[in-house]
């Protein structure tokens, strides 16, 4: 399938500012960083979660535990996908009981990834609360899921695709909208 870049939504400065704002909002809402765990959803949610944790440490001086969650084994579309994707490693800090788990992902779209992530978090224990931070919310929810912290809202059409690049994986920070060509 051929894609064509339509527009750039965020450059690296805007990404950085978005993450700083999200970090502040998390601290505000939870009155500090105590009892907060950041969990990045593989793949690009993970480096974003780490960066938010770094920012929080700069602001508050507190080290927030960071986990990485691979949701492959919890997906609801494994029967639809002819072949299953490989399972990446999940690495959760010890104990989610009573903590506020802030899930971090790059794009919120149908909500199915987050649903899978929540099911998986529940298998680790009983968090006090689960909150969701995303860099981009592009709409088109198929499940009743909403983000608590959003970097940018980007209304899109179904034919469009949001492409997020992060320094750690792709060499630069950039968010673009691409369109499928016929």
């Amino acid at each position, binding site marked *: 399938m051929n894609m064509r870049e339509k527009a750039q939504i965020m450059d690296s400065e805007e990404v950085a500012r978005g993450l700083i704002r999200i970090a502040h909002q998390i601290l505000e809402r939870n009155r500090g960083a105590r009892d907060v765990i950041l969990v990045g959803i593989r793949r690009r949610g993970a480096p974003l979660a780490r960066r938010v944790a770094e920012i929080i440490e700069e602001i508050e001086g507190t080290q927030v535990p960071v986990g990485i969650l691979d949701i492959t084994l*919890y997906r609801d579309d494994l029967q639809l996908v002819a072949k*299953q994707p490989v399972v990446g490693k999940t690495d959760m800090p010890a104990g989610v009981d009573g903590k506020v788990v802030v899930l971090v992902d790059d794009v919120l779209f149908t909500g199915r990834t987050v649903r899978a992530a929540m099911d998986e978090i529940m298998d680790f224990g009983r968090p006090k609360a689960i909150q969701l931070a995303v860099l981009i919310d592009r709409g088109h929810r198929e499940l009743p899921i909403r983000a608590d912290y959003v970097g940018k809202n980007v209304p899109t059409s179904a034919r469009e695709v949001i492409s997020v690049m992060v320094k750690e994986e792709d060499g630069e920070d950039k968010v673009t909208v691409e369109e499928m060509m016929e």
Partner: protein
Amino acid sequence: MKFTRKDLLGLEEMSREEIESILDTADSFVEISERPIKKVPVLRGLTVVNLFFEPSTRTRISFELAEKRLSADTVNIAASSSSAVKGETLKDTAKNIEAMSIDMLVVRHRCPGAARYLAGVLDCPVLNAGDGAHEHPTQALLDLFTVRKRRGGIDGLNVAIVGDILHSRVARSNIWGFQKMGAEVALCGPPTLMPQEIESTGVRVHYYVEDVIPWADVIMLLRIQNERLEESYFPTIREYSELFGLDSEKMKKAKPDVTIMHPGPLNRGVEITPEVADGPYSVILQQVKYGLAVRMAALYLLSGGQLESEAADQERKVDRSGTGSRSNL
């Protein structure tokens, strides 16, 4: 590279890439057994039958736990108590089971080629849990995984397998596995238990265990069975263990970072003494732990797995040169 086979029958026919894809997948399954809820829903609703024609507690339990931790429904059949005794053929037994819409068959049988035979006859994936002296792929895979975990890699290692090679499927599968992963393999045992022309597979053959101990990075001991006494493969257990058993005395000549392995169950005092089995070089218990992760990975991949690059490509719907993520979930 991906693992796309319908069945897992043996390592001899597999490539290094296929073996690595199973080991890499297994890596991600290890922590599941550390969670408070040791379960992931990935095989939910699938039925796996463990059809064991040879008695085996540990392998069967390992498979059963692996299946349950992936949320599959499991059925255990110890075929000595089933219709096989009443004269039902292997083919009929398997077809009758398949008729109940099962999704995967794990089979252990005393005849070489039995798993392959069933794989040809059944539509569902077949996993060979041991067919006579031919192959035991998940055992070798967990052995490879354990060594990789313990030592960081397999390339360039010297691996010695000691014991009854002639009757051992574990030996054969490990010869293929370790060689394909870049290790050098040597065998050691009495001449009566060394198969004909085994050197043609690229292994070295020794009769003195003292010759391999200083050379080996990994020493794998095989179980010696009492039945072999009756067929005069060696005179007594005592003589066997004097010549080939691994004890602290012989271990003095071993490398300081040697890894000691055993597929179990141990004959303490025969092929290995308790001190060595329980000592700091032994990874025997880790083998059991990693066995679970490896079997989960194998079951997962047989039910339709594929490597990340391919899957990510599907999601991105671009060729390999593209970058960026598309979260379509």
